[in-house]
């Protein structure tokens, strides 16, 4: 991995983490979009999934789910096997990754055209 790639990965992780902890969906989507757009080069689906998972894990570590609350919500939802916090984590990671990846696609298209042009 190039140094620049590593720096961008760190930047992306920070943006995604920021989107999670600001407690606003506007920030969350804005950050996810920014991650997709920056830098102007294509990234794989797995890349976003990994970064989102990592950010989510850090957020949950710093703000651990409250056991009583989780139990109450699981009771309301009628789900015993899957804790609520895990459902939230999965959805959040999935949505964050999809938004970033989908917005990264135009860049991917641009990048492939650029490559064709260079050839």
């Amino acid at each position: 991995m190039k140094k620049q790639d590593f720096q961008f990965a760190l930047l992306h992780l920070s943006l995604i983490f920021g989107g999670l902890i600001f407690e606003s969906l506007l920030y969350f989507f804005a950050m996810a979009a920014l991650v997709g757009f920056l830098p102007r080069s294509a990234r794989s689906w797995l890349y976003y999934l990994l970064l989102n998972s990592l950010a989510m894990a850090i957020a949950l570590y710093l703000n651990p789910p409250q056991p009583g609350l989780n139990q109450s919500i699981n009771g309301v939802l009628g789900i015993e096997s899957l804790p609520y916090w895990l459902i939230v984590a999965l959805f959040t990671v999935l949505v964050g990754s999809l938004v970033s990846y989908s917005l990264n696609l135009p860049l991917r298209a641009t990048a492939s055209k650029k490559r064709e042009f260079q050839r």
Partner: protein
Amino acid sequence: MRKWFWPLLTAVLLAALFYPWPGLPPLGSFLLYPTSPLQIDYAIKGSSSLPGTHTDLEIHYDERGVPHLFAQSDTSLAFGMGFTHARDRLFQLEMLRRTVRGRLAEVAGAKALESDRWWLKFEFEKLAQSELERISQEEPQLAAMFKAYADGFNHYLEQLSPGEKPLEFHLLGFAPSPMKPYAPLMLIRYMDKVLDYSENDLKFSALRNYLPDSLIEYYYPWQSPYARFPIYPEISKDSNAVTKGILTDYVSRGDFPKAEVKRERNNELGSNNWAVAGSRSATGNAFLCNDTHLALALPGTWYEVHQVVKGKATHGFSIPGSPFIISGFSDKVAWGMTNATWDLTDFFALNTNAENQYELDGQWVDLDQREVIIPVKDAPADTFHYYQTYFGPATTMDGELLATRWVASESTGNEMLAFYQLRQASNLEEAYQALLNFSHPPQNFVLADANGQIGMVTSGLAPIAPVPQRGIIAAKQSQQRLDFYHLGRKLKVLRPEKGWNHSANQTQVSDSLGPYLNSIFAPTARGRIISQHLSENPSVSRNDLKALHASVEDGEWPLLKDFVVNTAPASFKKTLADWDGKCTEKSVAATLYNHFKWLYCDSLSHLLIGHFDFQPPAEHLFYLSATQDSLPTKEAYLKPGELAKAVWQSSKRQLAKTLGAEMEAWQYGRYHRIHFKHITGLEALSYTAFPAQGSPRTVNVSSGLPGTHGPAMRSLVELSDGPPKAETVLAGGQSGQPGHPHYTDQITNWYEVKYYPVKWVLDAEEGHWQYSIHFR
């Protein structure tokens, strides 16, 4: 095409997440971490420093989550109360405000429309606004406290992110709304609805479709001979001198409410309070005990709090929505209450013509029609019409235009001033004077002071007629609308000679005033037990009082024992004859007795009035059955003993079906359970039902099958020259947030009638706190 797959998938997923699916919480905010309930912070350990205008205020929470507020002014204290009520009871306060404003359907849907229409016609929001204007002129300090309370509430709201709002808001998909300064004056009407609104007059008029007047008089007496066990025997006249009232001439065209079986099993509200003077206590100090019987809901009605303003402390139970302690104590005086149980509602049938007018003093007066649009969740808005009339708001019920006049719907008193002054009272007399400001819902206030004195005053307004009457009134004359009288100066005994007093929602007096109070009072069973224990003990100790709080001795057993044992089947006789009348979890006799009583009462009522939902007072039915050889019905006389024998057979079959064939297995704890339900009714947020002792006729009351009503709190206070020694317990917990460590943490101790010692702290530096909030 393939390049659009991912953006399309994302768009579809986002659309699904943010589409308002009916019956589901908003999925987007519920399932995405930044706004999900995972953001809720219970904050029970540590401290926080918040920006705020009241920098002289500190709030410290102890290990039970009881806030201790230290302030240098009343307004800072009120700000802190608004803040801490919002912090722990935000959803409860939202629902209370929506209920009284008639805006419940907006978040709960069409099923709440009936409630909204009922509340809207009284225009309580408008009334509270005008009351606040009046109080601003008469008691500016009090008005400033209301404003500060709302500011404190709103301050908490402002620093709350969408994810941090309590779970119920996430589930129902709406946000908490800011509070207006007049809200405390509006919210007290909710307690009026719970405690003094009665539709008995409607039912009495409909009752005439079922029973002749003579039988109504017999089964629904103005004062049952057995009920002559008053709170104030000292000021009651000869118990035989009961003046009868009249039943109004009006006969309903139909049943009200519609005749359906709605009798809840053993479900009765009530409360206990009593005091023991220093002259009669083991320590020489005055004691005061209180337990108010309300719904065992989550969250509960009460919220415990310790308030210190400039070093002067008060401790007790507040009601979310009010900056004041409602039942509590300072180092000088203590006070507690039970409901006076008066009927403060009159219904008037209006004579109308085709031109939208009603008759008043021989003239036709225009009906003042009002229209309100009620927003309804997931449905079109509802347009509600009602009329304002001289006799109160009017709506059509069962084809009749009925106006409702209710004490609570008129601006008349200043309840909050009473609690404000109680905090500052330094002796019994000052506490009594403070309570004369209290108008509704009328309460029996027990008092004690640090000089070892005690007292009792029933404070409140009542409509007094020239002749006591019940039933719907055919409205014609303006004088039919009664004036309200404050009875606090009449119904009081300060420093009783016997050295103790008590109230348990029974009648205040056994004389001609009784019928004017126009009510079906609570049974005397609890009062009899309290009275017996206190009168027999010349040196009452703290443990004696705790034992009385915990008493599960059925106060009706002495009246009914012979009747019950004599009519019971042979297989039950010995169990019942040996029974000590205590409704403990293990007792089989308690199951037999309580099930029989409920079924007997229901059967007799059914014989008298069919399915009509207005059962005669159970205590009176039992009194008649235990003392009379035969009872009249419309067709013939019936022998109570024979009915009882038939009921025992049904009872036996029902118990065998529900609890098993073996009688040994019919333990009371299997028959009778307590269920703390969340205010939304959601089972997952409720406390699982558990086996329980007590009955509606025991001091440690448990009402309903399953028990859904009981002592919402208990307090025991001893006042002396030094700091007060008090113990309290709450039914439920301090927090209204499901899953919070203080949501249900007191239920075990509450059930076992154990208490928590009150921390009497005058300086914040002296306490050991779990969580602290400072305002900078």
